[in-house]
Structure formats: structure tokens, C-alpha cells
């Protein structure tokens, strides 16, 4: 109507003013869907301003809410507008969710009921489309709220029903569980009762048989049984709270207990034998087993010590050990004795063979002389052989004397060894005595040999003359026998402060060093003297004689150079 009118601008302004004031939300669109006019109500409803939207394309002003992925407002509106343009009939749309953009760019949820009515000219052409919308947001919202509440109510009702069912079901379950539990409790009670009985039986057996103590992890006594009290002689009150060291006897070393503690502190069982001390100081032996009880961390929190008294056994063992030691000592002593006896027998055997060798030579040689002299006497039957017969008779006599002398040695040895020799003290002049002996010796000297006598000090002594004669003659005749021709034998006698010192020094063959220690042995002959006549008894007898006179005898010797025998005895025999 406006386009073809020739009405004044004033009229148009009035109509536009009237249109804009119409109550209701209207937009007048040109066929290209640009906004031609808009009512104030529309502006209010869509939170827009006229000057911002006039002349713009409808969908430029009202795009879809980009946050709402299901938004189909624009396409629905476009379809409705196209329908109106094409069919030139009004198109009403169902309630549309068409969110409105706020001035700040965000969208506000809105529901609309739109109508698009084409305005045709006389040629039946669409010149305008009147687009009317009604904001039904509040209605829709209310409707929505109501249905939500109804749903909640329905849900609640259903839920209550379910709950009721659940309660019934649960009650039944609980009832069943209760019954089962009761059954289990009954069973368990029975088991516990049986276990309790077992435990008390075991404890009874343990207490009856063993010495029992329980300590905490530090060794502080928490429990002891009667056996422990009776063996340790402490009362229970004296023991509880004390460290187990109270019964330590000090018998075992530190290492012993360190090992014990190391074992049980690491959760292992320790077994061993311990000597403990009772209250009265007496000790007792116990065969011990210590069992550690472990907490959840595997650390011992208490120890159970089970012991049995082995004192008697230990005592018996000690006794046996002592007896063994005694026996060993006895065996050792006996062995020593036997060894000595064996040694003695060996010595005797050696002595025997030495005796046989000596006897053979020393007896057979004079016997040979006797036998051959007798044979010769038989041959010399004529008168003129008288001299020769006499010579051989003398030779026989001398040989017999020689044999008698050897027998005499044996007899004096026997007397000496049996202690039968009696000492006869007498006072005499030692110087004269020495001189007589030297004289006696002169008949035995080898060619060129001589004996010198040197005398110092007092002359009067009180001694056994017979024994002294034997000693001196023996030593001097040895010196003669073992010295070559033309050598001197030095005989020195000295009396000094009540002691008599006698030296017999020769320049003979000497005594080999390895033989010197055996020289006084019975029948003993040094190797270098084997081929020289002798019984091996002389020095043995001399030594025994000197001892009888309360004296001593010793010698020094060097093979090839000579020997010095030194005899010392008291001037006056007591």
C-alpha cells in the first residue's frame, strides 16, 4: 500500500508510527527478507534496537545460537518464509526454540510461536511478508518445570517401591547371614574350647617336665614356672621383672652369649647347654631351647626358654673327664716309667755285650797263657829245663793273679752296688802314701815312662787308706796304660783348707769327645781303647769309691794330647 501510494510523507510517518506502536511482535520483510519495519514490542522481545537492524537481512540479525548444536530455528524459519513466498499463503510454524543474542554476544534461551503472512499487490505479487512472533518462552518453561516435577514425583514413588523391596530382600539376607554366623560362632567356640584344652594340656606337660621361663625382648623375666623357681632357688616374686642375667654363672664367655642373642634376635631357635647359678651360689646345668615369638614385623617380642636339668649328666661327664685326665697322666707316667725301664734294659743289654766282649778277652788271654805255659812245662821234663819250668810256673801264677784281680774288681763292684763296703777311717801321712804308690807303679811303666809326684800343703789326713789306694792306683795305671813310651805322668796332691785335690795328668791317647759322657759306665771302653786290655770297670769303681769318700771326680781330655783326672775329697772324713 505504501509503494503505490501517493500519500504524503506525513501520512506515511503516521502509519509507520502507528505500526511501530502495535502491541505485538511484528517485522515487515521485503521479499528478499531484508527488514523493512519492526514493531517496538519485537525490539523489546529480541533485545535489539531499530537503527541496528533496519535494512539488514533477517538471518544476519538473528543467526542460530552457535552454542546450541541442535539449533534449527534459522532453517525452520527459512523454510516457512520460502513457503509463504512461493505459495503466497500464510505459513504458521510450530513452537520454535530460537535463542536470542544478547547485546554482549551471548544467547538467551527462547521459545517462539511464529506466523509468516505474505502481502500481495494487485498483480498478485508478494511485496511484503509480515512476520509475527509470540514469545512463548515462559509458557514452555512452566510446562517444562511441571513435567520435570512430575517426573521427580514418579521417580520418587518408583524409588520408594524399589527401596521397600530392597529392604525386604536385605532383611532376608541378614537373617540368613545371622543364622550362618551363629552356626560359625558355635563351631568356633567348640574348636576354641578344644584348642584351649590342648593348650592347657601342653602347658601342664611342659610345666611338669621342664623348666620354663618367658622373657620380653630385652630378657626381662615375665613368667617362670615352679620348676624354674625350685632349681634357681628364687621365689617367683624375686624373678619376675628381673633380667634373665640373674642366673648367669659367669662360666660361659661373652662370645657364647653373643652368639645366643644373635640367634634368637634374628628369630631363630637357639639350643645349647648352659651352666647357671642359683640364688645360694650353687650352679646347675640346663639343656636349653629358646624360642623367639615374632611380631608382625618379624621382630621378636618375647622369648620362651624351655630347659631341662642336666647337672647330674654334666657332673658325670666332668667326672669322666677328670678320670680321663688322671688316667692320661697315669698312662704318661707309666709310659715314662716303661721308657726308662726300656732304656735301662737297653743299657743293661749293651752292658752285657760289653761284658761278654771284655770277659772274653780279659779272661781268655791269661787263660791262654796258663794253658800254653802248662804245655811247655810238660815239654820241659829234663833237669836242665828247671829254669824254664820255674819261669812258666811264675807266668801261670801271674796270670792267675791277673784273673783274680779281675774277679776282685767284680766283687768290689758288687759290694759297692749292694752298699756292703764298709769305710775304715785312719790317720796317715798322705805324702808318704803317695810316694809308696809311685814306687809300686814303677814296675808297670813302659820304656821311657816316668811318674812325677808334686805335693803341696799339710800331710796328715783322716781317710780310708784302702779305698784311696785303689783310686790312685787305678787312675795312675790307666795313665800308664793309655800313654805311649817315653811320656811323663804328672801326679799332683794338694791339701788346701780341709780339702784334698788330686790331679793325674798324662800325655796319652786321650778320650774322644763323643765318648766322654759314657766313660764312667760299667764295662764301657772308648773306641780308641778297644784293642788295649781292660775290663771297663776301673773308672766305674773309682767313681763309686770317690763318692763313698764324700768326694767328686771329673776329667778333661783331648784326643792325641792327653787327659787330666781331678779328684777332690775332704781332708778328714766325717
Amino acid at each position, binding site marked *: 500500500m505504501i509503494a503505490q501510494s501517493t500519500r504524503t510523507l506525513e501520512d506515511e510517518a503516521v502509519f509507520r508510527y502507528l505500526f511501530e506502536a502495535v502491541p505485538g511482535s511484528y517485522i515487515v520483510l521485503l521479499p528478499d527478507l531484508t527488514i523493512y519495519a519492526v514493531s517496538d514490542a519485537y525490539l523489546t522481545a529480541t533485545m535489539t534496537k531499530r537503527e541496528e537492524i533496519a535494512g539488514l537481512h533477517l538471518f544476519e540479525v538473528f543467526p542460530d545460537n552457535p552454542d546450541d548444536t541442535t539449533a534449527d530455528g534459522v532453517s525452520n524459519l527459512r523454510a516457512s518464509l520460502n513457503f509463504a513466498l512461493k505459495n503466497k499463503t500464510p505459513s504458521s510454524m510450530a513452537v520454535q526454540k530460537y535463542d536470542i543474542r544478547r547485546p554482549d554476544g551471548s544467547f538467551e534461551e527462547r521459545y517462539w510461536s511464529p506466523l509468516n503472512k505474505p502481502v500481495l499487490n494487485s498483480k498478485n505479487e508478494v511485496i511484503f511478508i509480515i512476520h509475527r512472533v509470540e514469545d512463548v518462552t515462559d509458557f514452555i518453561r512452566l510446562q517444562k518445570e511441571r513435567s520435570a516435577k512430575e517426573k521427580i514425583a514418579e521417580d520418587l514413588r518408583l524409588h520408594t517401591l524399589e527401596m521397600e523391596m530392597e529392604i525386604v530382600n536385605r532383611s532376608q539376607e541378614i537373617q540368613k547371614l545371622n543364622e550362618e554366623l551363629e552356626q560359625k560362632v558355635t563351631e568356633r567356640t567348640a574348636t576354641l574350647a578344644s584348642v584351649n584344652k590342648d593348650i592347657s594340656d601342653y602347658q601342664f606337660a611342659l610345666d611338669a617336665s621342664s623348666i620354663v621361663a618367658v622373657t620380653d625382648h630385652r630378657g626381662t623375666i615375665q613368667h617362670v614356672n615352679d620348676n624354674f623357681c625350685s632349681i634357681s632357688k628364687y621365689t617367683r616374686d624375686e624373678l619376675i621383672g628381673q633380667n634373665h642375667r640373674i642366673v648367669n654363672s659367669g662360666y660361659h664367655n661373652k662370645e657364647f652369649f653373643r652368639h645366643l642373642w644373635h640367634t634368637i634376635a634374628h628369630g631363630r631357635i637357639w639350643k645349647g647347654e648352659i651352666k647357671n647359678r642359683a640364688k645360694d651360689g650353687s650352679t646347675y646345668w640346663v639343656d636349653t631351647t629358646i624360642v623367639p615369638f615374632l611380631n608382625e614385623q618379624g621382630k621378636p617380642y618375647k622369648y620362651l626358654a624351655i630347659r631341662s636339668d642336666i647337672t647330674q649328666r654334666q657332673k658325670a661327664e666332668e667326672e669322666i673327664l677328670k678320670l680321663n685326665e688322671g688316667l692320661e697322666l697315669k698312662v704318661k707316667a707309666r709310659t715314662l716309667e716303661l721308657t726308662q725301664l726300656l732304656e735301662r734294659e737297653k743299657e743293661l743289654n749293651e752292658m752285657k755285650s760289653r761284658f*761278654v*766282649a771284655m770277659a*772274653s*778277652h780279659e779272661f*781268655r*788271654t*791269661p*787263660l*791262654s*797263657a*796258663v*794253658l*800254653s*805255659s802248662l*804245655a*811247655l812245662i810238660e*815239654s820241659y821234663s829234663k833237669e836242665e829245663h828247671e829254669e*824254664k819250668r820255674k819261669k*812258666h810256673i811264675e*807266668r801261670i801264677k*801271674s*796270670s792267675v793273679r791277673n784273673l783274680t784281680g779281675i774277679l776282685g774288681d767284680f766283687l768290689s763292684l758288687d759290694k759297692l752296688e749292694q752298699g756292703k763296703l764298709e769305710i775304715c777311717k785312719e790317720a796317715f801321712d798322705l805324702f808318704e802314701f803317695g810316694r809308696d804308690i809311685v814306687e809300686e807303679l814303677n814296675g808297670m811303666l813302659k820304656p821311657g815312662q816316668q811318674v812325677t809326684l808334686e805335693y803341696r800343703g799339710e800331710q796328715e789326713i783322716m781317710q780310708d787308706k784302702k779305698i784311696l789306694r785303689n783310686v790312685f792306683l787305678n787312675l795312675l795305671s790307666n795313665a800308664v796304660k793309655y800313654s805311649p813310651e817315653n811320656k811323663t805322668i804328672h801326679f799332683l796332691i794338694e791339701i788346701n783348707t780341709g780339702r784334698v785335690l788330686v790331679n793325674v795328668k798324662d800325655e796319652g791317647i786321650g778320650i774322644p769327645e763323643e765318648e766322654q759322657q759314657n766313660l764312667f759306665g760299667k764295662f764301657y771302653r772308648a773306641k780308641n781303647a*778297644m*784293642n*788295649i*786290655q781292660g775290663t771297663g770297670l776301673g773308672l766305674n769303681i773309682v767313681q763309686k769309691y770317690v763318692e763313698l769318700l764324700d768326694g767328686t771326680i771329673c776329667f778333661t781330655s783331648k784326643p792325641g794330647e792327653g787327659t787330666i783326672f781331678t779328684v777332690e775329697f775332704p781332708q778328714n772324713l766325717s
Partner: protein
Amino acid sequence: MKTVLLIEDNVDIRENTCELLELEGYNVLVADNGLTGLILAKEHIPDIILCDIMMPGANGYEVFNALKNDATVSAIPLIFLSASVEKKAIEKGLNMGAMGYIQKPFDPQELFDMITICFE
């Protein structure tokens, strides 16, 4: 006349044995030790030697060894005279090659018989 060399340290035995041998018709040389005996043996080459074993200085065995090692006297027969009755001593002497072994004291006839056997 056969010559006998007698080596013996014991004067009684030496003189008696010498006398007995002379009475039996032997020419007798005597030595009172081994060394003298060896010298006399080499000097006179006796027909037989009688030798003691246990003597001071060189003993009988040593004398016999020395004789055997000397070609001039090694063939002379030798009889040991000894007071030793030990089997070992007798065997030793015979094993060395001695013609005989006579134990002291001896019967003079026993000695004469053994000398006679040696000459046969």
C-alpha cells in the same frame, strides 16, 4: 825248616807260643805290634803268619789287608789267633781270606795241626 811269623801284643802269649813252635821245629819270628809284623813279613817272607786281632795300633784285620795288598807277601797263608768268641769276628776273618781262625785259649796241638794243614 819253615818260618812262622807271630804277631801278638801280649807278652806271655807271644813268648809261650814262640817257645812251643820252636820246640815243634819251626823257625819263629815275633812282632809285638802290627806294624813291626808287616816289616818283618816283607823282610823275611815267612811261610805262614799267625796274627792276633785285638792289638794296640794296627789290629789283625788291618795287618791282613795290608799284606794282601802287597804282591810280595800277599800269597803267605795267615791264621788269626783271637780271644774273641763272637761269630761275627770269626766270619769276618775267614771271609777276608784267612786260612784259619784259632780261639784263645787254645790247645797247642790244635795250632800245630792247623799249620800243617796250611802247608799241605
